[in-house]
């Protein structure tokens, strides 16, 4: 179970965070993208940690702040979606996640910033909660 808490971002209503503040693992054990996702509350903010796939031994992308938390609709105060961003220098990855029926759906938009003209690409993966 996630910890109870709330988050407020820039002019926004406070949203309850327990739906997303959990540890999540990819439903596909053979993923070549993201292996696991962990969200936690730090003070009034949310932070996310990603473990990427790397041939059997996950690579820690590090922890970044969640830029914004979103409710399931305009009148709800239950946070069910988030946006976060990783900047690797040569590559920027925008993460957009939402929880639906206990499943975290995570879209990752990868944009190359190194002038290599490699193709920007996206991925969408699914994660189930890990019991703590």
């Amino acid at each position, binding site marked *: 179970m996630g910890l109870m808490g709330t988050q407020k971002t820039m*002019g926004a209503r406070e949203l309850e965070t327990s739906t997303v503040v959990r540890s999540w693992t990819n439903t596909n054990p053979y993923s070549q993208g993201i292996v696991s996702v962990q969200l936690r509350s730090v003070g009034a903010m949310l932070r996310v940690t990603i473990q990427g796939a*790397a041939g059997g031994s996950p690579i820690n992308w590090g922890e970044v702040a969640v830029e*914004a938390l979103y409710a399931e*609709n305009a009148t709800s105060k239950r946070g069910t979606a988030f946006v976060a961003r990783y900047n690797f220098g040569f590559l920027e990855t925008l993460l*957009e996640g939402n929880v639906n029926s206990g499943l975290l759906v995570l879209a990752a938009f990868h944009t190359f910033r190194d002038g290599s003209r*490699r193709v*920007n*690409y*996206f991925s969408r993966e699914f994660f189930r909660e890990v019991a703590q």
Partner: protein
Amino acid sequence: MKHVALEQMQERPADPRAPLDPAALTGNWVNTNSSPSLIRHIQLHHPGQDPLVMRVIGAEPGLPEDWGATDAQPFAENAASGLASAFSASFDLGGIESLLQGYVVKGVLVVVSFTRVKDDRERSSSFGKEFFYRVP
């Protein structure tokens, strides 16, 4: 953060002469829900060598009906593909910012919205998903 996922290390450089083909995304798209919550109509077009341009006609009371046009960034399904099948775009609606991600599945455009409240209005920042079909 020096680490990258294996997926990102395996990509094959694309042909620099060939930008992503946006044909799967371009056109006029209408919400499958005749009473949509956020977006009624989307136009995506690709004027020459310019970026992909997105125009939105909104449906939510309290927000502008015409969101105007903005650049949309195209994305391929993987780093080896030359076909754009997804996009990301952001609209600043004055006190509201809506980040849209879209992707095409079997001819349906799925648009996921992350609408962020930046002022003090009585509305939560919210997530939504809507579906669109292409019209001539």
